């Protein structure tokens, strides 16, 4: 029995089905990130867990207690909002102690807790200020402090870093990771930024159209996405998805036919039937521009130099474009014909939607 159990959770708005049967088990102390495109239901899921939205089906259990119908104040959760939602007319100290004062804790206990939290978040010099006298990063820390001071069972974060500038975001991301290590409390974090998802999460939950697409550690999602959606969503630049002309299996060898070329590699076994019009997924860093012995030919369209590396956009003869990651200093030029070699062990095959084959996954012995 996990710490937080979500079973068949449904959420209907008037004529919109926002959550379509969410099943998720979260262990105590995990850092879970919900990620997905806009409108995928990730914020709705978080707000339903928080009790700010009522579910229309399914159950939520926290620490062995059914909290589906409880009001949010009784769920023992704390939430950090995107806008921080600090109480504007209260000082930082009052903001931090609001929940404790409502719970009628002893003044000495309140003072003690506020003091320790404000010290750990470097807010001790700001306690008498009002929120509008604080910078964005400071407000963010007050919002986090307000959540910590209550010592909840689970922290909920609703896109907490999206209002900060890029430099501060990186810094706060580190602080959050450090905080999670220190407190060891379960955290659920919603973001649309996959970098935040990859760097912070123990496990990432990818949502799409109100359903969970895949749950896994960041590396699992990156290396063996279960579906085309996950493959395209995780990773910058995106994974290349190349439509194959044909897939032929001969004894222990798989032949991927693409533009007169054939990418061959031995396979021990495959999972499920391979469709003829399979799609080959391959990350930009697993393709290489080579002098000879390439698998396919293509014409360089554009080279994006990022300093440490470069992304070369290549158009194949059948008009598909792919991106190949290359070293920063190459003598390749726009318009040049190049040969590309593909790392066999990193190939993933998809049908219309789902993964049907991947060397990594098959060797690891699970799906």
């Amino acid at each position, binding site marked *: 029995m996990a710490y937080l159990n979500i079973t068949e959770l449904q959420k209907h708005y008037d004529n919109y089905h926002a959550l379509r049967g969410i099943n998720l088990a979260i262990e105590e102390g995990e850092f879970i990130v919900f990620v997905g495109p806009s409108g995928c239901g990730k914020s709705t899921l978080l707000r339903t867990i928080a009790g*700010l939205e009522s579910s229309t089906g399914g159950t939520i259990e926290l620490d062995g207690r059914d909290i589906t119908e409880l009001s*949010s*104040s009784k769920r023992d959760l704390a939430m950090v*909002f*995107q806008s921080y*939602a600090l109480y504007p*007319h209260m000082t930082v100290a009052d903001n931090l102690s*609001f929940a404790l004062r409502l719970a009628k804790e002893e003044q000495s206990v309140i003072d003690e807790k506020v003091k320790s939290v404000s010290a750990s978040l470097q807010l001790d010099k700001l306690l008498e200020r009002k929120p509008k006298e604080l910078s964005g990063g400071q407000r963010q820390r007050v919002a986090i402090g307000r959540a910590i001071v209550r010592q909840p069972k689970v922290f909920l974060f609703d896109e907490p870093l999206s209002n900060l500038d890029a430099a501060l975001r990186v810094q706060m991301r580190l602080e959050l990771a450090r905080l999670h290590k220190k407190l060891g409390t379960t955290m659920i974090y919603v973001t649309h930024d996959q970098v935040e998802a990859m760097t912070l999460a123990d496990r990432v939950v990818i949502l799409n159209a109100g359903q969970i697409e895949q749950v896994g550690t960041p590396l699992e999602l990156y290396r063996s996405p279960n579906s085309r959606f996950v493959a395209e969503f995780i990773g910058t630049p995106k994974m290349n998805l190349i439509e194959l002309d044909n897939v032929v299996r001969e004894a222990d060898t798989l032949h991927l036919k693409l533009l007169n070329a054939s990418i061959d590699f031995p396979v021990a076994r495959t999972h499920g039937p391979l469709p003829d019009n399979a799609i080959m997924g391959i990350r930009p860093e697993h393709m290489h521009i080579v002098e000879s012995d390439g698998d396919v030919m293509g014409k360089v369209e554009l080279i994006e130099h990022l300093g440490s590396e470069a992304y070369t956009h290549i158009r194949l003869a059948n008009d598909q474009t792919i991106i190949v990651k290359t070293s920063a200093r190459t003598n390749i030029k726009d318009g040049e014909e190049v040969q590309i070699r593909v790392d066999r062990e990193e190939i993933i095959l998809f049908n219309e939607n789902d993964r049907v084959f991947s060397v990594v996954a098959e060797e690891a012995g699970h799906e």
Partner: protein
Amino acid sequence: MKRSITRLLMAPSVILLLVWMIVPLSMTIYFSTINYNLLYPGRNNFVGWMNFEFFVTDPGFWIAVSNTLILLGSVLVITVVLGVALSALIDKPFFGRNIVRVLLISPFFIMPTVNALIWKNMMMNPVYGIFAWISNSLGLEPIDWLSNYPLMSIIIMVSWQWLPFAILVFVTALQSQDTEQKEAAQMDGANGWHIFRYLTVPHLARPIAVVVMIETIFLLAVFAEIYVSTGGGPGYDSTNLAYLIYNQALLQYDVGVASAGGLFAVLLANIVAFFLIRAVGKNLTV
């Protein structure tokens, strides 16, 4: 050069406004120092402070001052308290909310005179008023509001007139309240009352200050309701300063004393404004 042109262009409106203010004020000051009774034309000799003395020693003077302040204070309290409560009630969406809002705001469109007539004849009339009918159907003796509780009747009428203004301001202000703050408070364990007490009321501090200041300006000069309904009576029971001045000028034809009273009203308005702005004005800087 540029500056003098701007001043030149601004001059007509500034001068107009100045004249608009200065002429009546100086005429009032002038009238307040001469013997000026419409019944004795031509005897406009200088009398010094005598008009002020007459006005201040008038038997109705202190009653009028206290009535003015009671009227002001009561209406302010009623409109602000009820206004905040009603606005908070209709803030959440419910069926027919728009109609309820229009109904709540509509009394503001009714002229003070008509308002007073409605209350006098339809509501408070001891024979065929609605209050009398309610009392009768409960087997109680109908109350003659205007004779027995004249000041309270005026307070009710004026509150009814000004409550919509307060509601209008508060409803608009509530719409700008951040929903995430309320949700954060909910997560922090706040119930509806806590949210109202610790978030909504502080959020409304500034609109409350605005309502108090604007209403004060108008409530110090309530006249039509008194004139139409109680006529300041019985005795001086519902006479405020504005009505007392009218009484002096147009019932006793003593323009000199009325002018002195007018100047006293200006003084009182300034004193009240000073304290009110001191009390509520600090909210404006939040």
